[in-house]
């Protein structure tokens, strides 16, 4: 039965069967569903391409940063995509909305990162639709861990590593007026909650210390900043990163390409508009040449 109109799968008559079978034993697991549908979750790489030992380096040319501010989390990334020393794209979106109250900032292999973000988005929706309740915060974190772990072999081969920052707003955080949460992942899928900020990517080393400084000694603590203050801080940080890291882009005044800045708050994920960014950018860089 060619009920999907899928030419690649013209011979696969098992589709309906799998769905019926699944229907009897379901726990809302989208990855299992994809496996039953024979979706290739892993890319098979011939073993001779595997690199060994110390030269394994996860490519992560970018700078993404998340900051806990007064209303929740502000999460941002530059727009540059590179291959080696070439800039191949200057409008890459590295901060992706996953559901109403979560966003993922990615560093590393874009192909795998976008796939992880897409699976994540569909997994949360599938869980809600099939189980008639939202996946819990812990469930969402584990799902991302699992996807990163499934990708481990690619990461070890130095071709598909992904290190994301996951920002969520926990509506059930009753003991804390600010439900914003920032999680940082390692290549094995372990997640750590970052209280004030997180940054990853090749440019992150240049701004991590600044963030620590601001968080501890800043005039206004990061978590007390309003949206404008947080945005200005983030724009400045990305600008610093772009000065020292060739794989991170700054603000391109000629064509007005701004970093992607999103807020994750009680009302949901919102993308800060270019107009706001332009105004704040002028404040952030009072002496910048237009």
């Amino acid at each position: 039965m060619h009920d999907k109109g899928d030419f690649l799968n013209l011979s696969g008559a098992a589709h309906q069967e799998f769905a019926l079978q699944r229907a009897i034993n379901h726990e809302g697991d989208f990855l299992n569903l994809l496996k039953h549908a024979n979706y290739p979750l892993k890319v098979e790489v011939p073993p001779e391409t595997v690199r060994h030992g110390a030269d394994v380096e996860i490519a992560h040319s970018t700078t993404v940063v998340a900051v806990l501010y007064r209303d929740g989390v502000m999460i941002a990334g530059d727009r540059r995509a590179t291959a080696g020393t070439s800039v191949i794209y200057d409008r890459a979106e590295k901060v992706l909305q996953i559901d109403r109250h979560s966003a993922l900032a990615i560093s590393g292999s874009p192909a795998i990162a976008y796939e992880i973000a897409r699976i994540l988005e569909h997994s949360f929706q599938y869980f809600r639709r099939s189980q008639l309740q939202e996946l819990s915060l812990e469930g969402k974190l584990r799902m991302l861990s699992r996807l990163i772990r499934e990708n481990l072999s690619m990461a070890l081969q130095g071709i598909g590593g992904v290190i994301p920052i996951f920002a969520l707003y926990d509506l059930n955080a009753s003991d804390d007026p600010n439900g914003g949460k920032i999680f940082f992942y390692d290549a094995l899928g372990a997640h750590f909650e970052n209280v004030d900020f997180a940054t990853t990517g090749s440019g992150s080393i240049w701004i991590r210390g600044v963030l620590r400084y601001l968080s501890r000694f800043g005039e206004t603590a990061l978590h007390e900043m309003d949206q404008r203050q947080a945005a200005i801080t983030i724009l400045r940080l990305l600008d610093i990163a772009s000065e020292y890291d060739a794989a991170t882009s700054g603000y391109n005044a000629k064509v007005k390409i701004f970093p992607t800045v999103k807020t994750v708050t009680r009302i949901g994920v919102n993308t800060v508009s270019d107009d706001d960014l332009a105004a704040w950018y002028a404040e952030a860089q009072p002496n910048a040449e237009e």
Partner: protein
Amino acid sequence: MRDEPYRWIEAIQDRRDYIEDELRLGSPVVGVTYDAGMMLLTVSKGQRKIFEVHDRIALSAIGHPADIERLRMLVTDTASVQGFQNATEDINLHRLTNYTLAPAFKQAFESIAGEAYIIKMLLAELGSASGKSQFIGINFDGIVRTDPSFAVIGGTEVIETGMQKYLTAAKTDADRDLTNAFRLALETWAIGKELSSREPEETESEETQIDTTQMYEVIETAREDGQIEVGVLETAQHGTSKFRLLTSQEIEDALS
């Protein structure tokens, strides 16, 4: 049994009678469009009856809860996988009902030795750039019925006809707002509920329409041990998923 055609037809007829008898008392479902989208309404007792299938598709059914669950999962799984493998915009209700659900319904119905699905299903699809809004109903025998503006499912043919008559008589303007659509759907539901509570012989002969006072009496009685459940698909809904359930507060507001 196959070598005796008459007995096969008889068995099918028995099965039809049996299923209709089982469905007769089911709480009907009404689907109507309004200015901001479309709605599915029923009155349920505990078990949820209106579901989100995909970004622009909602589902409701009457029948045996186990069958509803099984077929709901069939269509949810299929839509989720298809939406992931292609793009969510490529999901369309026509393909889901005609290639996935209807064949499953028909096969179960006509396999005399196997179990039958005791179910009638109503699905709603919110129009997008590539297609118009539509309701698609599937009968337990796999017959599919499509309607662009309103649709009902009730236990029997007579119940459904009575409900449709009321909807047809109501103003069909698409400008009605959420509250008006809610009231229209709820009144239509009351007619279906009233008809389903009569004896089979009565419904054949009696007048199928009841007045508004009677309608709200039926609704009040039903609300004593159940609750009004309304699922809407709204074009203006933030994000890609257009489905939401009305809150109990919204329902109270619409009632007053």
